[in-house]
């Protein structure tokens, strides 16, 4: 990744910016700040200039996060704030708000169920309809739905999931599509057990292989087809087993339940998150048979989440495995995110750097490059394809904060 020199846009916020969000096409930008304002910027066609098209006081406290809904639902934003509310905003087309031609954004609803500061708000993937999830400082996760997408004023609280500890972040699994009904599964082959490892039998393409060993003999990997969302907690008192909670929708009951994730015995000690979680992000699944979940704590942990069915087709359970540890920041990591196709993972931390991570081929001369900030629990990736690692995660770019030398 090579970048051209950064181009600056003066935000005109009067306090620290907390979040910047881009719309589906990367052409509109929403910013929110401690000054309680939200601003929307539009990229002008043809060139790379960004012009402010709206600003308004959205809350009566710091605005923590801002999120765009999918354009299928129109130009819609959600914000959450220290003032204990989350709000949904819609742009009024054709109506200029003031003389300089700025757009008017109308508050469609105010979600006031939380009794504490609302820490994060995220829209669900569009295939679920117009859904959004919020999480609060008191640990309550709320899922709201707009049953009529033409009427954004009407939101119903679908469910509240209480989780005792202070929640910090939400990530929906983007890979749920309602249309695909068939279930894919792969047999885990137990035949060449001599090194105690198993491979997916059906796929001869090493790239798509299941990335590590499974203890259960003759089980199947079932590609998960349930709506899923992960919540991270940054409470100091939170136990290691509750740092990340994954909710899945039981369509039959129309309820969100906590997923019981078992971790494999071999990496039990490394796989639980012991430090506060500040951000997490599901990667787009593409053609994989499992999901990748990146978690930002003291370092970056990359988890593999998969659904395993035993040979008698009786039980289906989720498994969470630690696939890699990225320690490049050497400090707390605050934010983490994937690009739209999941080929690049971006993170920022207390080292005042933004780092870009990418899966790169391992060359024979790269042996000494392996510790460029990524370590992996030894057993996992060495057995990736049973033939040594061909791909590994590597830091491919660093963006650093430098003061002006005046």
């Amino acid at each position, binding site marked *: 990744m*090579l970048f051209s020199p950064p181009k600056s846009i003066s935000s005109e916020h009067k306090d620290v910016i907390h979040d910047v969000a881009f719309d589906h096409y990367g052409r509109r930008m929403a910013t929110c700040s*401690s000054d309680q304002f939200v601003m929307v910027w539009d990229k002008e066609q043809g060139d790379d200039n960004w012009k402010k098209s709206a600003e308004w006081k959205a809350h009566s406290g*710091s605005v923590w996060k801002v999120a765009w809904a999918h354009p299928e639902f129109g130009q819609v934003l959600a914000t959450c704030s220290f003032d204990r509310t989350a709000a949904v905003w819609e742009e009024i087309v054709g109506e200029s708000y003031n003389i300089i031609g700025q757009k008017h954004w109308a508050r469609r609803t105010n979600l006031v169920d939380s009794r504490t500061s609302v820490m994060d708000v995220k829209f669900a993937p569009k295939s679920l309809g117009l859904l959004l999830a919020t999480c609060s400082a008191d640990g309550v996760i709320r899922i709201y739905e707009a049953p009529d997408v*033409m009427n954004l004023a009407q939101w119903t609280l679908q469910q509240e999931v209480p989780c005792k500890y202070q929640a910090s972040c939400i990530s929906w699994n983007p890979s749920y599509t309602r249309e695909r009904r068939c279930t894919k599964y792969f047999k885990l082959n137990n035949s060449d057990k001599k090194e105690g490892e198993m491979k997916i039998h059906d796929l001869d393409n090493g790239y798509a292989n299941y990335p590590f060993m499974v203890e259960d003999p003759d089980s199947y990997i079932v590609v998960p087809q349930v709506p899923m969302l992960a919540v991270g907690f940054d409470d100091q008192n939170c136990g290691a087993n509750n740092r990340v909670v994954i909710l899945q929708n039981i369509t039959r009951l129309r309820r969100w339940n906590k997923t019981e994730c078992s971790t494999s015995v071999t990496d039990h000690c490394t796989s639980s998150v012991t430090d506060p979680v500040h951000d997490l992000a599901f990667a787009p699944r593409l053609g994989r048979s499992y999901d990748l979940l990146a978690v930002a704590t003291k370092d970056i942990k990359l988890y593999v989440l998969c659904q395993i069915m035993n040979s008698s087709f009786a039980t289906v359970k989720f498994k969470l495995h630690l696939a890699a540890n990225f320690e490049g920041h050497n400090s707390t990591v*605050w*934010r983490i995110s*994937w*690009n739209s196709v999941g080929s690049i993972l971006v993170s920022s931390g207390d080292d005042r750097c*933004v780092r870009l991570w990418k899966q790169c081929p391992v060359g024979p001369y790269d042996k000494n490059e392996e510790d460029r900030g990524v370590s992996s629990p030894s057993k996992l990736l060495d057995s990736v394809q049973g033939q040594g690692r061909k791909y590994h995660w590597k830091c491919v770019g660093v963006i650093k904060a*430098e003061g002006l030398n005046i």
Partner: protein
Amino acid sequence: MYEQTIQTIDVPDKLCEKSGISFSVVNNNDISVFPFRKPLPQNIGKSSEFAPCEGSVYMLKANSIMDDPELRKLINESHAIFVSSRSVPTDENSKHRVLEQSREHRSSIRQCIENMHQAMCSRNADYENWIKILESIELIWHLCELLHLEAVHSDIVLPKLIEWSRLNSVEYDENISKELHFGKGAEIRIGEKYWVQIMSLLVESRFEATRALLRLHSEADSKSFMEADAILRGIPIYTIYCGLSPVEFNGRWRAWKSMVRSKISAGTFSAFPHLLNVMNILGGVEPLFPLLKPHCHTWYQMLTAILQFSDPMVKVHDLNYYAQQCIDQFGGLSKLRLLDHTILALFDADLATVIKKLQLTADNGWSAVHLTNLLHLSGCLNKSPETAVDLEPMLLEYGQLLMSHKRFWQIGLMYLKYCPTHGKESIAIQLCSLPIDNTKIAFKVIEAARSNGLYDVVKSICRVLAMKHVKEGNYGNALTWALTSKDAEVMTQIADKYLYKYSTGSSDKELNCHNILTGLGQSVFSSGRLTFLCKYCDFQRCYQQGKVNEAASILIKLLESRISPKYFWFTLLLDALPLLEMKIGTPVFSHEDSNILLANLEELAIGWVDNPVRKTHNFNDQIKIIRLAITKNLARTLLLQSNAPTNSNTIICY
């Protein structure tokens, strides 16, 4: 700059330096960063320690080969070759075809370099880096083509290596041809430069040219020079067509070599130390390396020279031995750059490493994808799991990169189509995130999605466009998009929204829907609400054309069948009012019809709690008027019906 390096970018911002930094992903390649500090728990709710401050957001655009006009041509040309390479089934001719395609690729690289040179002259564009990168790629590609894509006859590689090294060092040719042109007698040729030129020709095994240059020497008529000329003339060169078996050739070569050595030891050339040097090289007299070193630019140039003079029949698998020796002469393994490593891997026939190295080139994976594709098609790639090369991740990365560009997405699509595991999903995601600026692009994208069987994508794109038009109040266009994707859900939503708007006072002209609704045909039936809407339009049309009876019967059917949404009943009843009040001729509504109207009216008047229509202006007064009209109509029809001769004596009364 051949290598792709980890880039560190500095963001010059005071606040960033004080507070720290965070980011947001713009799209596939671009990133924005902004100053950020997570507030301490005790500071939450207060303004931050940096306030008042004005944070800036910085946009970082990823550079790619798509930004450059010359490289764009390269992308397009290589795409055409890629598609043709994939569209023909493999048969016995395929090896030959792959070779041709490889040459096409190389010629487009050469063309690109040429264009860049021109651009540097004409418009001062800075292409130096790119020329270096492309030259390195071409060098590797050419060698790979000679060693792995072309057939190597009886494992003898030297002729190919010579061809390779000659093509890639052209700088001397011009000088030498100039010298030859001036002819005999000029004084400079006795100087150092003259012998340097002769040596450089020898290194490239250009013996004819060496002879021509030697003949220009002022002492060319002396016995020593005549002997040298005879030796050079007689040098055995192995070609497939020379008619000799490798064993025969070997015998001849040895005989020639011992002849050279005997002449050297006889002191034939001792009068001319420079000529003696030349003969020493020809005779392969040790030590060759120090003699050749000053005349070779690279270790691989030296390799071909060494092989020519010491082991012309060298086999592929022995190359590594000689390569190591040459590398030692040039400072050993530690001095090697990426390019050298790649070439060494090619000599080792380790294609997996070659490709891995190519992937590190700063060309966004362009060369790795296309070369691997050809190697893959020609069956050169090793099937054993240790050294297997996955083409898919390369295709995927390259295709994804192209697809993120509004100019190249159709080309990127072609590459992604050949990714069996991740291709389809990737296409779906990226098609959806293409900005649809106008209808033309929309149709292109929809067409691409359809032909790939991605109906979800078609649906999503149409929904986005439909919603855009709904928000602009243009229901007709919105409906067209919903119909394009046959999306019943959205059709219902739009029809509903339309009816609602209409019932709350918007005219059809404002909603701009009439034209679309009249030409719907079959698709009306994909959504119940839409069917109703169309029927209602039929009613309006009949009414306007004066076909009152037809209009009345449609209206009654709409009310009776109860497919109308409740908020629309009031509108329907209002529409019935002028028909009820028609005083000319027989009443348009029969007795039964009037009863149906009345029943609907009463239900509306009672159960209006959740009905938004009741908020409309003088709802109650209107209800009264309609009720009165219905009653009058009832009375009239009752009278008419009782007077008319009828079989049934019962009259239903509510």
